[in-house]
């Protein structure tokens, strides 16, 4: 049995918004194994980005623990945290906003190495920058340029090179391709896959594009209003979704093939995602669920293993 690289245990992140507690992430648990890609999907406001940030402690968690390489990182001191941080990095959604416009590409990529003092001389550091640029499909000429001189796809490559600078084990990719054009998305996804094979990286891939998540992930978790609704292997989840929300979500994605699309039955969901401020103690999906019963209104279902490796949080999961 392989030990998970990252074990997320009942993490919660609440924000005090004055009128109440915004429960962005409300107790989610899952494991990420070394070398795999775990996809986290959900609609806007479901807490997937907050979850990503809380897991690597960019946000101070409200509750829970994250075991990384056998240590609970939420209990580490600032000093210890600094050391551990080298092992996990993040790639952000907006390549325009996440690169400092006044720094050259070389400065951007070498900054993490300077902070962590991994190389003694600036020459070594520069060599490493060039190596990284080549790795992500850019070249030496690009080192002295500024972010605005690059296209969106190239900028995302710079962001990836920076994330790789410290040889991390685990990378949180927060919507890394949603700001890019279709043809460029494929370039970046293929690059991420290649790097994973070459460097043995583990990804947490957060996105709202379910077809892309299915393509890149080994296992996928579906979030809704701060809760994890379903976790399963990628194929299993897309072929045999159990939770009514996952089913509706999958049926809502139009397939780029007119013949198939015309004959598909869509599961219509009424209404919008409710507010995450002071949510009631019921299943989060109850108001939009066509199968809701009294039990669903009274208590929150736990995430349970229905089939091997297929977890569902639904009171009626065994009936479906």
């Amino acid at each position, binding site marked *: 049995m392989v030990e998970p690289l990252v074990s997320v245990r009942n993490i919660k992140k609440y924000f005090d918004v004055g009128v109440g507690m915004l429960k962005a992430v409300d107790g989610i648990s899952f494991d990420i194994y070394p070398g795999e890609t775990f996809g986290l999907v959900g*609609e*806007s406001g479901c807490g997937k980005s907050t979850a990503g940030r809380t897991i690597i402690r960019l946000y101070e968690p409200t509750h829970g623990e994250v075991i990384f390489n056998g240590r609970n990182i939420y209990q580490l001191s600032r000093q210890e945290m600094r050391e551990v941080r080298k092992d996990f990095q993040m790639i952000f959604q907006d390549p325009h906003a996440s690169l400092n416009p006044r720094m050259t590409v070389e400065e951007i990529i070498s900054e993490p190495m300077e902070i962590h003092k991994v190389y003694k001389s600036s020459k070594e550091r520069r060599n490493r920058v060039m190596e990284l640029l080549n790795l992500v499909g850019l070249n030496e000429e690009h080192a002295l340029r500024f972010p605005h001189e690059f*296209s969106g*796809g190239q900028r995302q490559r710079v962001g990836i090179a920076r994330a790789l600078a410290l040889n991390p084990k685990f990378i949180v990719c927060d919507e890394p391709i949603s700001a890019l*054009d*279709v*043809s*460029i*998305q*494929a*370039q970046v*996804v*293929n690059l991420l896959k290649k790097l994973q094979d070459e460097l043995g990286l583990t990804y947490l891939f957060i996105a*709202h594009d*379910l*077809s*892309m998540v*299915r*393509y890149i992930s080994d296992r996928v978790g579906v979030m809704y209003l701060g809760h994890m609704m379903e976790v399963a292997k*990628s*194929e299993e989840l*897309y072929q045999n979704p159990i939770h009514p929300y996952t089913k*509706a*979500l*999958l*049926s*809502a*994605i*139009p*397939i*780029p*093939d*007119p*013949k*198939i*699309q015309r004959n598909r039955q*869509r599961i*219509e*969901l009424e209404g*919008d*995602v409710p507010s995450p401020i002071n949510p009631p103690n019921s299943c989060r999906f109850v108001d939009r669920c066509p199968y809701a019963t009294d039990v669903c209104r009274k208590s929150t279902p736990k995430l349970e293993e229905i089939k091997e490796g297929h977890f569902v949080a639904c009171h009626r999961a065994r009936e479906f």
Partner: protein
Amino acid sequence: MERLLEVKDLAVSFQTYYGEVEAVRGISFHVNKGETVAIVGESGCGKSVTANSIMQLLPMPPAFYKRGQILFEGEDIVKKSEKEMQRIRGNKISMIFQDPMTSLNPTMKVGKQIVEGLKKHQKLSSSQAEKKAIEMLELVAVPQPEKRIKQYPHEFSGGMRQRVMIALAMVSNPRLLIADEPTTALDVTVQAQILDLMKEIQEKLGTSIILITHDLGVVADMCDRVIVMYAGKILEEGTVDEIFENPKHPYTRKLLGSVPRLDMDRSETLFSIKGTPPDLYKPPKGCPFFDRCDKAMVICKDHMPGKASHSKSHYSSCWLNHPMAKKDAEGSEE
């Protein structure tokens, strides 16, 4: 089929400090009554400029019509004055935009925004207009319309706001609705609701729709015909079935191959198109896809291919499809 809109050799440029940007470079297409035509392409391909020029919504200057005609019900829009356009906009041609938050007035109650258009185009009294506004919100399935018209846009969710936008666009029963990425800012479940709503309204009112999008799934779901744009040119056009099943242009093929599909095998590799689209300050003389095409030939560099016809509705602009070309582009799939 009766033609509602016919665009002939339209070219639109922007005069900037650095020189002229040729955003749209001579495109021709038509829209029939009651059909939905998609314009697909990546950012910067000129799809939104095309849409805005049909409405004369581009700021002029810096934008200007370089050449061509936009015939709407037989009349040329390019030649219309601002005053004449005001009678067409929101009346015969309407538009919905990507971001419903920035296209609604945040300081005005939703009902008033709908009433405003009604009073202008249909000369209704205030009470009649209000009644009609409530009807319109009912049409787009906004619950409790009597209460909702007294609220401000920020009190609506994204999907509800887009419904209001559609209600606004449909008040005077336009012949043509231009939808510029109407669901890009929405979640998939809400997107499905909005697309269904648009289809339903189209069936009821017989409106023609131009749908601008980069989401090929939405195209397959909604449209009758597809126009593929790239760097200000139309590279291929055809019915949805022709485009999705038998794409003739290498760009269309690559574009279709670069989107992962829910029903595809995970071990299949995703096509990626190398490089980026050309700069339209100095647009290439020949085929704009030349740099990124694996099948490029010498002739592609300097000469733009003409339109080759594959059926009555299916055209592509690629030298591989020229009658003199050795073999059809289909033959050599990678």
